[in-house]
């Protein structure tokens, strides 16, 4: 880590409180230039607060925020080299599309020619080249969204902050914009910090995800890390669908739950340590009772287009979510099967650092097991 170039943004033990209400606690992270970061969490988790601290709309209660190695705690909003795409766009209704996008460059005192070139370039980038003379009220939600992106990018920011920008769009448009945003980020090569409560969006777009809850970063990592190796109950539950059960780590690579021992690929815990076991619904397969590692009764099923979402109950009364390609019959007894590497173990109150260290200690074995 120490040989890497200066992070573009760095939080050093940052906290924020209103009166006695602590909104953010001991936030520490570094952002590398040119990557797509996502702050993911439910509402009230502090993700937008972090964004507002970066943009300068809020000031830290304690700790330091650094931009390219310089503390910027008290640098006013308008002097920071970053721009924001707001959730409600915040487009100026007294200006047309061109004037909105031209706002930043004209404040900076650019010449008319430069401004025109910049605005044209940005509108092309967001595929609104023909819309320069339109009034804001004449645009659809998706087009306003694009104007907001063009306006923020027209200032040549080094960091683009996006505050749930897609949440007001319908599903199809959202998918399209996810793809386009990712493409714009890669084309321009600037750092994006994207705030969302939509885990699917986060997984699809990001290089790196910070999962937030209760003003604390619960876990950060690549989308794959976060999905495959959630650190605690909250992350496992928030990212994707999960079956979470109480278990006991009988020994390395052996876990006990629902009254049976199962082979798995986790290690490095105390013998007989109480743990939580995570099994993703898409990793579970239905089979005959004889071939099943567990026997369950189908309780409910709903058709989801590309799969059936099945709720089943085992003999201990635990509920299981299963994604199956074939239709089942409600009330039928079936077997449930999964591979050792599908089992993910979470320790109680394990910190991110301890978690990473433990993973590293047996990572090689784990990799071999997967191959």
């Amino acid at each position: 880590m120490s040989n890497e170039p200066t992070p573009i943004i760095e939080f050093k033990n940052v906290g924020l409180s209103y009166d006695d209400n602590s909104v953010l606690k001991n936030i520490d992270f570094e952002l590398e230039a040119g990557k797509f970061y996502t702050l993911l969490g439910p509402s009230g988790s502090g993700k937008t607060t972090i964004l507002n601290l970066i943009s300068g709309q809020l000031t830290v209660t304690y700790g330091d925020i650094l931009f390219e190695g310089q503390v910027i705690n008290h640098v006013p909003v308008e002097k920071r080299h970053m721009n924001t795409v707001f959730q409600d766009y915040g487009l100026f209704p007294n200006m047309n599309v061109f004037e909105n996008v031209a706002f930043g460059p004209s404040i900076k005192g650019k010449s008319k020619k430069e401004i025109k070139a910049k605005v044209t370039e940005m509108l092309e980038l967001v595929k609104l080249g023909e819309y320069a003379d339109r009034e804001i009220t004449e645009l659809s939600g998706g087009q306003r969204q694009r104007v907001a992106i063009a306006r923020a990018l027209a200032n040549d920011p080094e960091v683009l902050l996006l505050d749930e920008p897609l949440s007001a769009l319908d599903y199809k448009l959202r998918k399209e914009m996810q793809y386009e945003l990712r493409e714009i980020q890669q084309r321009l090569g600037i750092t994006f910090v994207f705030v969302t409560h939509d885990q699917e969006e986060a997984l699809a777009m990001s290089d790196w995800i910070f999962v937030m809850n209760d003003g604390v970063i619960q876990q950060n990592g690549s989308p794959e890390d976060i999905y495959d190796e959630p650190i605690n109950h909250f992350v496992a539950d928030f990212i994707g669908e999960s079956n979470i059960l109480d278990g006991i780590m009988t020994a390395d690579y052996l876990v006990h739950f629902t009254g049976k021992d199962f082979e798995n690929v986790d290690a490095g815990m105390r013998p007989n340590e109480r743990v939580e076991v995570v099994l993703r619904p898409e990793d579970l397969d239905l089979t005959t009772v004889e071939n099943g590692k567990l026997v369950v009764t189908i309780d409910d099923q709903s058709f989801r287009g590309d799969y059936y979402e099945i709720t089943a109950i085992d003999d201990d009364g635990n509920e299981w979510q299963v994604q199956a390609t074939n239709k089942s019959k409600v009330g039928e007894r079936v077997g449930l099967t999964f591979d050792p590497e599908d089992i993910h173990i979470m320790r109680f109150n394990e910190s991110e650092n301890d978690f990473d260290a433990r993973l590293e200690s047996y990572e090689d074995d784990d990799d071999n097991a997967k191959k």
Partner: protein
Amino acid sequence: MPKSKQQRQLFYIIPYGIWLVLFVIAPLILLLFQSLTTQNGHFTLQNYATYFASGTYLLMTFNSVWYAFLITIITLVISYPMAYLLNRLKQKHFWLLLVILPTWINLLLKTYAFIGLLSKTGTVNNFIGLMGIAPQQLLFSNWSFLLVAAYIEIPFMILPIFNSLAEINPRLAQASRDLGANQWQTLRRVILPLSMPGIKAGIQAVFIPSLSLFMITRLIGGNRVITLGTAIEEHFLVTQNWRLGSTIGVILIVAMVITMVLTRERARKSSRNRG
């Protein structure tokens, strides 16, 4: 069904229609009729000829417009920052109420209160007397007239500006700062244009009544400033020349209509000035 609905609508219109005919249209016709006829009821333009040939009346007209303009500028300069500030306060509606409160008091009472404040033996002179300054002639000056007129008109300017500022999404100021504009640039390029409807409404609410002020010109200004309002009052009550009074009245109405037209909401090619 549609017929009964139409009938019902007609029924609702009746009180408004009666009001309109009795108190707006009829007086206007009377005013116009009087200004265009002789004592014997013959058509004439003589009243208008008298008006436009007289240097005195033209000076009064100029005075009316000039002082109404000054009063409007003074109230606007005071009201805009005040409305802006009020909007940023936590209890903004409470503070706004305090600003509006004086409008609940009768105009004449407020005017007399100012006589008490500004007269030679009044509060202001007593106060500066404590500092050893001899009593000043404050009443019956152009300045005292402007002061009192502005004082009375300020709430009517603040209210529409306050409302238009309150309607502006705070996000827009945030976005402007985010794009690199400082507070002054944000005010000039975002807040001010978006509060224009309020400013225009305020100008209408202040400029038009100020054209025909006459009580304050008499009681506070001591008739040093003679406006068209004063002239109309003189013609109707003192010289009893109703025809010339009506003529000036018509001219005043025309001036008001011009003001309304100049400050109206211009509908751009779309509903652009909302928000």
